[in-house]
């Protein structure tokens, strides 16, 4: 990520300690993760210890310090989804993509994540793939959906 873009984000949110969370969110929105140089730059520009910026970046679940895949598959782990079997969906993704939850495939195609409820409980169990909601999911349909995405990528995996 180019630092000039970080600068633009800082300008937009105000160069104050109180803007730290918003700045990191905007950086992540643009880069899909929080690149180290961006964090160091924010620390310098806001005159905040790097330790504080780093604490913020690791405290919130929304932030990622590593690049993520082209397809982010997020399984909702809210209570409603849980009683309808969400845990099995995570296991299924882990098997299908050969990656642990929270991780990204080596080819940077897929990331498997869990979220503690997105507030679409009536649709549970729910998997969100790049922002698109897939409701009342089953392990079997999930496999097919993922296979479809893999195929669309030219079967590189």
């Amino acid at each position, binding site marked *: 990520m180019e630092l000039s873009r970080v600068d633009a984000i800082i300008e937009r949110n105000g160069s*104050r*300690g*109180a*803007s*730290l*969370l*918003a700045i*990191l*969110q905007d950086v992540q929105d643009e880069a899909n993760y929080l690149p180290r140089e961006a964090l160091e730059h924010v620390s310098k520009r806001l005159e905040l210890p790097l330790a*504080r910026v780093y*604490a*913020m970046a690791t*405290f*919130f*679940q*929304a*932030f990622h310090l590593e690049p993520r895949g082209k397809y982010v598959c997020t399984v909702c*782990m*809210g*209570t*409603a989804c*849980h*009683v*309808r*079997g969400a845990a*099995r969906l995570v*296991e*299924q993704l882990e*098997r299908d993509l050969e990656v642990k939850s929270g991780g990204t495939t080596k080819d940077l195609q897929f990331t498997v994540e869990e*979220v*503690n*409820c*997105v*507030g*679409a*409980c*009536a*649709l*549970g169990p*729910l998997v969100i793939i790049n922002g698109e*909601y*897939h*409701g009342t999911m*089953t*392990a*079997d349909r999930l496999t097919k959906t993922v296979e479809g995405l893999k195929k669309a990528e030219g079967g590189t995996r």
Partner: protein
Amino acid sequence: MTRIGKASELAAYRAELLKKRPADAKVVAVCCGTGCNAYGAQKVYAAFAAELAKQGVKDWALRSTGCHGFCERGTLVVMFPEGMLYQRVKPEDVAEIVEKTLKGGETLERFLYDDPVTGEKHRLEHEIPFYKHQERLILGQNGQLNPESIDDYIALGGYLGLAKALEHGADWTLEEVKKANVRGRGGGGFPAGKKWETCRNAKSDKHYVICNADEGDPGAFMDRSVLEGNPHSVIEGMIIGALAIGSDEGFIYVRHEYPLAVKRLEQALVEARGLGLLGEKILGSSLSFDIRINRGGGAFVCGESTALMASIEGRVGEPRAKHINTAIQGLYNKPSNLNNVETWANIPLVINRGAEWYTSIGTKGSTGTKIFSLVGKVNNTGLVEVPMGMTLRKIIFEIGGGIPAGRKFKAVQTGGPSGGCLPAEKLDLPVDFDTLWNEGSMMGSGGMIVMDDRTCMVDVAKYFLGFLKFESCGKCTTCREGIRRLHELVTAVTEGRATEETLQLIEDLSETVEAASLCALGTTATNPVRSTLKFFREEYLAHVKERRCPAAVCKTLIRYDINEKCTGCMVCAKRCPQKCISGERKKLHVIDQSKCIKCGICLDVCKFDAVEVK
């Protein structure tokens, strides 16, 4: 957009709007709430727009609205003024609906709601049992307005409460809210008027008004629905609060998982500023107040008041000791009044229709309505708004339509991770703040998760502990280590590795976690495990003594088998990731238990009910 310079001019502005939209105007409203969107509501809306144009329909207006609550049946389409509801509408159905229903006046039976219990069909939205027993003071407007239009809100009487409050002044407004006894909808049930008064009386050059829209309770989505479906109701409530408290700056702290809510709020703030409802000299009065939006970062603990304020200040969401109330010393150490989304949305109603009317709804100690997200193993999932004091039974069985697939009700979980599970014997309890608290559960923000006999209560306790050990901020020993250890112990129960001593240790440790943790996340964290131990002890003992999970959920203790209903279709054998199902075409299949990882796929894919789990 022109600013409305005086409170009295708001009525005139509204009259102009109403002229353009008579009460009997024909409107087709497509629910574009999050649930319906997931079913493709945007496409349905687009299809309506295209079809209305193509078929030259001029007398029907089209409106995209917020969530109607009946997410189970999306995409929902309601035709006003009559209020006929079509459910499960797909984009490809739209041409026919426009032609036959909108133009031809014909009712298309197949889109009507059919009651899963009685088999009856219902035409009108408010006749459906799901809606009939509700009292939708807050949610009702969601279906009638476009959340991106301030004019829609004003046409329905929006901002009249603010005008009235400005006219009567801050003291009257505060008194009215106190008299109405509005209790906080975010969990604690603390009287809002009392909090406002404490904050207003705290001497300071600055007072803040904050809206808690962090909605971290897994299994609750009423705040999301209000923010996305009727953002102005929250904003109006906050402006009225600012008047009563004497504040000039407000914040709305929204979960990052709710991008649509952020977008709607941003737009609503711009529109409100444009009309002079926010900013300097609101409606020409001496009140100046503006609101900023803060996005959360995905941390449940940030819903806690001190953590939320730390987060607005740009620090990590760690709670601090609250020996002095945040209403006196909160954000930047200034008096700060924090209320939940739904609490704020109640305020315009209270002011508009008066405390007397408001207290006539609900019970003496808990006035007004409460929105619940009725989810889990229940037929009609969605958002329901009922007067306080309705029994659990009525909510779950009459509104919710009971338990699906003929299974048996087992428990209902209320209050999220801080709440508890109540068994069938408690179904006739009235739902209000105090009753639930006395039963070891809590109203919480209004998550209501129904569980049937296929839900394992030990697993549920484990689920909440797993949630909380991850969501604890990690500061206190008792919360961080205590919850982690409780999770370990309960996991041992689910894996058949526990003894009765384990259960005793769970109880003792729970007591310390509750007594010695710093914030309410820790002090209430043990409610799920304690309430299940109290009401479902037998089920814990079955895991401990017989190494058996009666609900057939806990993986270590269950097995999958194929029974004689198997037709030998071979589907399971093909899909099994372990390739551990053998059998020939048209012959009974068998699972090799030594290889089975209990993923449950065979159960999912079998069309003949031949896979059993025990």
